[in-house]
């Protein structure tokens, strides 16, 4: 009798909804706050938000970020303010996706997005450079470097109307 009860349980699950996610074909959406691969953001005018302050590198508990800053000029402007990130590298194998860089960033330039497929055949491929991380400029807007009028972009950090 117990045997039949056991078979009945098996039979019941045969007619229920399948729980398996057929991963490569079908994907389960990640949560809103999921932290995946990083992206470097731009302003609407195409300038980079990253100002090369390296606070993210200082906050990183795994020392996965390497930032090298250089000076902006009005002829070759990458970001508002004095400096921009000339080199921005993240070692995805060191990174533990904690999001401290996101919290440390004064201009909200670095954001952890929802991409999680990070597998490498060679460990040298795990270092993501600035070109791989940065978002493309918005449509119809030139990328960086831009030539700008002098005295316009003097602040590295945008003025906030309603700071918390």
């Amino acid at each position, binding site marked *: 009798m117990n045997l039949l009860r056991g078979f009945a349980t098996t039979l019941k699950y045969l007619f229920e909804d399948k729980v398996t996610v057929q991963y490569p074909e079908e994907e389960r959406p990640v949560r809103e706050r999921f932290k995946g691969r990083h992206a470097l953001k731009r302003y609407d005018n195409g300038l980079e938000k990253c100002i090369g302050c390296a606070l993210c590198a200082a906050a990183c508990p*795994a020392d996965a970020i390497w930032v090298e800053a250089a000076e902006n000029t009005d002829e070759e402007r990458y970001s508002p303010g004095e400096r921009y990130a000339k080199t921005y590298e993240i070692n995805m194998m*060191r990174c533990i996706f904690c999001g401290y860089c996101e919290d440390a960033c004064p201009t909200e330039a670095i954001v952890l997005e929802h991409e999680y497929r*990070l597998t490498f*055949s060679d460990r040298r491929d*795990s270092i993501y450079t600035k070109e791989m991380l940065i978002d493309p400029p918005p449509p119809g807007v030139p990328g960086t470097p831009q030539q700008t009028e002098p005295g316009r972009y003097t602040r590295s950090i945008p003025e906030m109307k309603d700071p918390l």
Partner: protein
Amino acid sequence: MGVTQKLGDMGVVTLRLEDAVNWARTRAMWPMLFGLACCAIEMMSAQASNYDMSRFGMELMRPSPRQSDLMIVAGRVSRKMAPVLRQLYDQMPEPKWVLSMGDCASCGGIFNNYAIVQGVDEIVPVDVYVAGCPPRPEQLIHGILTLHERVKHERITDWA
């Protein structure tokens, strides 16, 4: 799978031997149970019914190295564990592959200190590295599919 041609209506399909062997290898690649830390939880999750690695012919984790083809190093490897890992790798029959799962196994991750091996490729040859701390089960499955792609491109001359 490189099926090259179909001969008329005879119901015959020809293909290269190495393609057939590589296909067979990717479809029955038994992983060795080598969970060392929190990544093992995600490995178990990838094995369980929600993600179900047996869809890729990974029916069950073998606790014995003699019956396994793929070593999933899931978690941080301490210096004390390193000789054990190498011994288990040596006991696995050829052909064998190593998948380094998670940051700690791949390069030490957050544990940059004297006690942790800074990447298992110091000890064993690693085929695929999976980033993440710990990786999602999808990420592990993606790594396994990357490994399958690698195995499919192995040539008969490399077998020797």
